[in-house]
């Protein structure tokens, strides 16, 4: 039977469990332990993180590499990018993110909307929910291994004229 990820409880906020003999230990206590553990290994324990970049097109080094930690059981990362664009309104910028583990890519594309190439004028673009889309969540691990891993992502920002201010990585905790 497939098991859904657990998003609660907040394990670092709960009170310690105190069971004093002769109170009987019951299976429901084990069920709680099992549920808490699954929460640690899935959604609650792997909430994601934001990575500041401030990356302009053709910065040095060109095509920088960033390392991200991949929580146990996670294969895909949803990505939300904070971007801006300068130049002519309507011009398109493209950021290609490539996983070194899987060689998979996802492509984020945005247009200059006239808000300026600045932090104040930055806006959000995000991956889609469909792994088959060119801009789908990024495959950062092949197979559902329940160990800590990492992936080195190459950021190719060669098309357009703007700035990638940062990337929000949201691990996809699947039912399995």
């Amino acid at each position, binding site marked *: 039977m497939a*098991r859904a990820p657990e998003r609660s409880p907040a394990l670092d*906020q709960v009170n*310690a469990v105190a069971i004093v003999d002769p109170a009987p230990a019951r299976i429901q*206590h*084990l069920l*709680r332990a099992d549920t808490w553990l699954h929460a640690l*290994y899935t959604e609650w324990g792997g909430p994601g993180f934001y990575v500041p970049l401030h990356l302009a097109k053709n910065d040095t080094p060109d095509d920088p590499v960033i390392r991200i930690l991949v929580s146990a059981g996670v294969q895909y990362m949803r990505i939300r990018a904070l971007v801006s664009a300068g130049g002519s309104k309507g011009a398109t910028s493209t950021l290609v993110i490539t996983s070194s583990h899987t060689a998979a890519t996802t492509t984020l594309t945005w247009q200059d909307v006239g808000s300026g190439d600045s932090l104040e004028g930055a806006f959000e673009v995000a991956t889609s929910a469909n792994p088959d889309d060119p801009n789908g969540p990024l495959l950062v691990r092949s197979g559902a291994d329940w*160990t800590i891993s990492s992936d080195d992502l190459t950021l190719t920002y060669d098309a357009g004229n703007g700035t990638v201010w940062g990337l*929000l990585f949201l691990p996809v905790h699947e039912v399995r």
Partner: protein
Amino acid sequence: MVYAPNDPSTIIAGLNGDSSAFAALLANVDDAYVNHGPTLVCCSVSFEVSATSATPVGEFVIPANDDNNRVRFWAYWRGTTGYTATLTFEVVDGAGTVLGSGTATSTSSSYAFSVINVTPTGSGVRYGRISLHASAVQLARIEHIVASVYPSSTPAGLTTSGWAQVSGWDLSPTGPIPSEVVARLSNNTRAVARIRPCGLVSGLHRYGGGVPNYEVTGNVYTLVDRFYWPGGDLDRRKYRASIRLGGTDPQARLVVGPYSFECSAAGWQHDLPTLYLPQGSPGFVYCRSTSGGTAQLRTYQMLREAA
């Protein structure tokens, strides 16, 4: 043993237990000690030094870690071909006393990742300090850093956090279940969650050029960074906001959702708010010098904080 989730139909209150599911639960609880190491810091930042003595370029906060597990620090960096560049990572206390350190070297102008593992001493909030130097006045440069806390193996005996190994204990599906076992199973997971807080947002100011630039001149607040909140918690909970300031009369303000943290004075400043922050909430970071000089926001971090 690697975590293998129990089938949700195997442990059900009111029904008899299953010995294999019980054994898997015990092994899984132990496994979490070595396989739960959330991101503490992850940011792209340019630290560039051409010096022959170790030059501190950045710091980040390392809360909790009651059991003094190893701190893992990765850097994507380079030296200069023909010379030896040295990257030093130290864990220090609030007074700057070194509680553990390690180094990596590079003799190439090509970027590559190095990892430094440091098992610190001490207790309470500590800091990771990054330094660079080279064997001659040549370039040493970092472009990206990541850090986490997790050990390579489970410890023996009872640890400071209250964690203790449980696999190998007898947990019969038909006999009485010792109270200590069931309490330990839950409390071990709780302990791991408390000593390895997730770093949700982190940014460090550049050193010697590059990005990001969190330096501001003047007494008007300037937006130096923005972020989206990863979040994920379903209810109000405690967080840690830590900011390190430098320069002349520095002041910073961090705003996310309904939360605003303003702090002044050089050095580390901390706040421990209890908040509900929905995933995706926009965050804003501002800096200024109250006397109109030049100030730097050297580090900002938001992490989960145990109650």
